[in-house]
Structure formats: structure tokens, C-alpha cells
């Protein structure tokens, strides 16, 4: 079970064989643009003082997040982390609700109870992260356990970064998934910097995917700036898990193109590293591929870009119109009520 390094995706035919038609391909592009757009606009809103707290972005990780989420089935579930905005966008969390979340408004998925990208939507199969990374990774393994207990053909996707992968939670989750061959796909977004800590101070194996062998399942390293390669590997892993083949660990290699959060200027990252990875920008890279291989026209591109711009503008307006929470509701929902267990995802 040696770790495998995924090949880049080449032709349109290859992509079609992997299950994507042309409309899907343009949809992926659109989702990547929305992902970056939400974070860029959010950053501006933060600087304008309209978003309290802090602000985390995943610039450089759009292909990885959108690629994996595109490969998930409608009934699959996952626990994305803070650089995985593309997962929320791809699964259908509306950008206006994401802005409302950032702004602490009642229409955000957590209704002002939690902030920034700590969001999810159980009805879309996404469960909100916590700050103690990767605490949600073994929770996702638990979801896979539930599918195995009920013999459902569903898969759980567990995300973490390379920094978070050092914690015991990742080990316990992966070990359990391996022992029970649970339908779980682990995605490590290796963006090479855990806050200011570089990879050589984080782990001593060549690839994080090497660790999969220790848990008795397959590992694969994929170029996280190649959305179609990420999609292909995620789809393989998800379908394998669905068929009872057990977990896969996908290490998706990217660079975090900004600081840990907006307060961090990333002075510790060598400039040439940023320059090198800027040339591999996942959106630009995919745009070129679409023009060269899927004959995306100027008109199509303009239409997508304009549509995304309009969506973001409308989303911010709608989010700003959402009220702030009433302090009288402060204590609501600390405990769940009995009838809440009859919600669709709880049946």
C-alpha cells in the first residue's frame, strides 16, 4: 500500500470518463470563483468593520475544496475546516447566509452563535467545524460508523490540514476507520504552513499520505491546485468507500497564499514560494484548461464572471439586511428539546 502520486488530468475525454459533462465543468469554475469571491469580499467587509472577530481565508485551496465536494454524492456528509469554503459553496450553502454568518446575523447557519467559517448545514450534509482542529475528524469517522451500522451506502469525508494532522484526534479517527474499514475519506489539505510552522517542523515522513499505510488503507498525494485531479482522486476514494473498500487518505498539496488569518501578513513565508505557487493559481490554471480543452469562450467566461459578481453583490446586501440576534435569545438552545430529534437528518 505504498503511497501513490496522482497524475494530472489531461484531456476533456478523460474528464468525461471521470463522470463530468461540460456543464459540470463550468459549474466547477463558477464554484471556485464564488469561493474566492466570498473570501475576497469578506476580507473587505472585515476591514470595513462589518465583520467582527477574525477572518480566515483559503486562497490557493479552492481547487482542493471544490474538487472533493464535487465528487461527493448527495447523501454523503462531511466536516470541512477553515480553508474549505469551496465545500460549502459546492454543497449549496448560499453565499448570503455565509456573509450573514461572518457578520453575526440571525440568518447565518449558526444564527450568530458561532462565527466566521465555523458553519455547516445538516440538511446539506455538512457539519460545523470547531477551533480545536481536527476535532471534527473523528466525528466524521463516527458518521462513517453510523453508515456501517445501518448498512447505508453513504460516505463521510473528514478534512484537516497538515498541521492538524499531528494531533491525536487524527490518529484515533484514522485508526478506528482502518480497523473497521469504515466508509470514510480523509482529506489532508497540505498547505505547507501551520500558522508559521513549516512542514519540516510538522512531520518527518516524506508525504502525509504515507501515514495511511500505518492504518491499513491507501494513501494518495494529489496536486491540490488541479481541480480535476482532485476530483478524480476523491471520486475514486469515495466510490471505493461506498463499495465497502474502506478508507483512503488523500493528501492534497497546495500553498496557503495568505496568512493564517487576516491579522497575519505571512512574513515568514519566503517570497519566492508565494511567487512559484502564484503561477500555479488553481483558478487561473483551471481557466486555461477550460479554454484549451473544453473550448470555454469569451462570452461564456464573461457570463460566469458577471453572474458571480452579481451574486456576491446581492448576497452581501441580503446579509446586511438580516438582523442581529436579539440578546433575549442568549440562552435559547443550550439544550436540545425532545422534538428536535425528529428532524430529517435525525431519522
Amino acid at each position, binding site marked *: 500500500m505504498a503511497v501513490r502520486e496522482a497524475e494530472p488530468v489531461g484531456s476533456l475525454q478523460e474528464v468525461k470518463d471521470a463522470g463530468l459533462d461540460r456543464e459540470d465543468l463550468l459549474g466547477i469554475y463558477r464554484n471556485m470563483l464564488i469561493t474566492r469571491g466570498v473570501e475576497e469580499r469578506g476580507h473587505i467587509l472585515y476591514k470595513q468593520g462589518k465583520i467582527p472577530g477574525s477572518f480566515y481565508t483559503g486562497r490557493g485551496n479552492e481547487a482542493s475544496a471544490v474538487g472533493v465536494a464535487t465528487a461527493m454524492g448527495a447523501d454523503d*456528509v462531511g466536516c470541512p475546516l477553515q480553508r474549505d469554503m469551496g465545500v460549502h459553496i459546492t454543497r449549496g450553502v448560499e453565499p448570503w447566509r455565509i456573509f450573514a454568518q461572518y457578520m453575526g446575523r440571525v440568518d447565518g*447557519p*449558526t*444564527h450568530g*452563535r*458561532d462565527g466566521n467559517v*465555523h*458553519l*455547516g448545514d*445538516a440538511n446539506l450534509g455538512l*457539519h*460545523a467545524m*470547531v*477551533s*480545536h482542529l481536527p*476535532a*471534527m*475528524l*473523528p*466525528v*466524521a*469517522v*463516527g*458518521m*462513517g*460508523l*453510523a*453508515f*456501517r*451500522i*445501518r448498512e447505508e451506502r453513504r460516505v*463521510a469525508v473528514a478534512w484537516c490540514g497538515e498541521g492538524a494532522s499531528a494531533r*491525536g*484526534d487524527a490518529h*484515533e*479517527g484514522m*485508526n*478506528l476507520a482502518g*480497523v473497521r474499514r469504515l466508509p470514510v475519506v480523509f482529506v489532508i489539505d497540505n498547505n505547507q504552513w501551520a500558522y508559521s510552522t513549516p512542514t519540516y517542523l510538522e512531520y518527518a515522513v516524506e508525504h502525509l499520505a504515507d501515514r495511511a499505510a500505518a492504518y491499513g488503507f491507501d494513501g494518495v498525494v494529489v496536486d491540490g491546485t488541479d481541480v480535476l485531479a482532485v476530483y478524480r482522486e476523491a471520486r475514486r476514494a469515495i466510490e471505493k468507500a461506498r463499495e465497502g473498500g474502506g478508507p483512503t487518505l488523500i493528501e492534497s498539496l497546495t500553498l496557503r497564499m495568505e496568512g493564517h488569518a487576516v491579522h497575519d501578513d505571512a512574513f515568514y513565508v519566503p517570497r519566492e514560494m508565494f511567487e512559484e505557487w502564484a503561477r500555479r493559481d488553481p483558478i487561473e490554471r483551471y481557466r486555461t484548461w477550460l479554454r484549451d480543452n473544453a473550448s470555454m469562450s469569451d462570452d461564456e467566461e464573461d457570463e460566469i464572471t458577471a453572474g458571480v459578481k452579481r451574486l456576491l453583490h446581492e448576497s452581501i446586501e441580503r446579509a446586511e439586511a438580516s438582523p442581529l440576534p436579539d440578546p433575549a435569545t442568549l440562552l435559547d*438552545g*443550550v*439544550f*436540545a*428539546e*425532545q422534538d*428536535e*430529534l425528529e428532524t430529517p*437528518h*435525525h*431519522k
Partner: protein
Amino acid sequence: MPEKTYLQAISDGLRQEMRRDQRVFVLGEDVGVYGGAFKVTLGFQEEFGPWRVIDMPLSETAIVAGATGCALMGLRPVAEMQFADFVSCAWDHLVTVAAKQRYRAGTPIPIVLRLPSGGGFSGGPFHSQNPESTFAHIPGLKIVCPATPEDAKGLLVSAIEDPNPVLFFEHKHLYRRIKGEVPDERYATPLGKARVHRPGDDVTVVTWGAMVYTAQSAAEKLEADGVSVEVLDLRTLIPWDREAVLASARRTSKVLVLHEDTKTGGFGAEIAATIAEEAFEHLDGPVRRIAAPDAPVPFSPPLEKAYIPQVDDVVAGLRALAAY
């Protein structure tokens, strides 16, 4: 009504719920063939199979987090910690994920964590703790500490039905020592309702778990002095029955809070402070606390005996309070 041990009552309640509701299942270390460290789930795997009685790796985080994930997908996990002490390894998951999930993300986490707790058998510093107050401080968790076999079954049923994470502290010292009548049929004992274990008029002892029996023995000795002691068994700490405690305090005017957990920051402090805030004018003496001293639970029998509140300690405390 059949007589059952405290342990049998827990086992019966759990089995009954698993038969009744397909969503209920158990997971933990050695809970399968071995039946759990204390044999609560003995024979369960034969009846329910390996995917409803799940032997887990030695991974408390994976047990609690895994249960949380299962709960999010609609199952009703009952997770066992081999000893309550080991919940420290899963503290993060209880406190960071399970306790806050409903509040911040809107998704209930109906899990029960069974926690064999308490000392009295030379288990030493890592097998004898009563870490209930640690969790009582965390909004979003419920805490149950049954004292009788009847309550152990009825409260477990309520804990499993409850849509929140519930910590079910089973006192190991009671497992095979305490017997009582337990109805065969299904019944649920509501969380948050105290029980008068022994009625009395002069002094109230508020307590729970194994200390209920220590309080009872002390109350019997005080009876010879002509002092009538009421023993109020709290049964659940979160939610706790403030009304019952305050009503008893107002009636007897003197309260002693007794627990096996250490004193500083123990749950007794919360009870004493509440009585001081809400019933001060009804008191004829200070609210006293008897608890373990602020030390790890020691191993050697004389040390452990000095650590765990004894009947004589309670008798002395009650006499002092009665004479105040």
C-alpha cells in the same frame, strides 16, 4: 417486584432500550465478548451482534467523537468509559464538540456516556475519581448520578431518551453491594427531580450517589440523639432540583451538603451558594459541606478511608449543625 443489584438494573435498562429502539447501540472498550470491565453488557453482543455492541480500540477520543458522529446521523449511542477517570482523554470532545453543538450549530447530540466512578476499593488516583463537577461547569451537558437500583434503571432510560449529551455516573461501589426492587417493565425517571431518601425535620443532608448511604447511616445514628435528619438524594446534578433543595432548607433551616468529589469547586459549593442566595433568611446555621479533601484519590486503604467521607465524619458534621 424483583430484587436487583444496581449493576443488573443498569444492564436491564440498557438491554430494554436496545430491544425497543433500533437506534440505541453501545460502544466502548471490551464491551463485546467480555461484557465490559464490570460486565454491564455481558451477553449483549450475542443478542444484538457486533455492530450494535461495538468493541472499540483504546481510544477515548474516538469513542466519544465517534458517538457524536453517530448521533449526528440519527443514532442513539451509549458509550462506555471503562472508568470515569478516563473521560479526561475525551474531555475535548465532550466539552468542545458535544456540549456546544446544539447551541452553535443547531444539531442535537443525543449521546449517553456511562462513567463508572467513585472509590472505596483501592483503585488509586486513576480509577476512583468523581469528576462530575468538572462537567457541571460546562453548559450543554447533563449529569446523572443514581444511588438506587430503581433510579439507575429509570434514569438511564431518561438519559437515553434525552436529546442532549448525558454523563451517567455509575458508582462502582454500589454495583454489587446495593440491591433493591426494580420494576421489570419500562419506566423513565425524570431528570432534574430530587428524591427524599429519608424524611426528616431538623437537618437536611443534600447528597447523591454512594454518599446517600453514608448519609443514611449517619441519619440513623442521629436519630438516637433525637435529631431528625432528612436525606435528599439529588439524583441529577444538571439539571438539579433547586426547588426541592430550597424547600427542604426552608423547612429544616439547616443544611449539610455531602459529596465524594473533592471540596474546592465541587458541586456542593454550587448548592451551598444557591441556598445562601435564595434561602438565607430561613437558615438557623451555616450551610456546611463535607467532601473529599483536595487531593488525588490515594491507594492505600487507610489513606483512602481518610479521603472518602465516612459515616463518622457526617455524624460529627450533623451534630455540630444540629447544636448550632
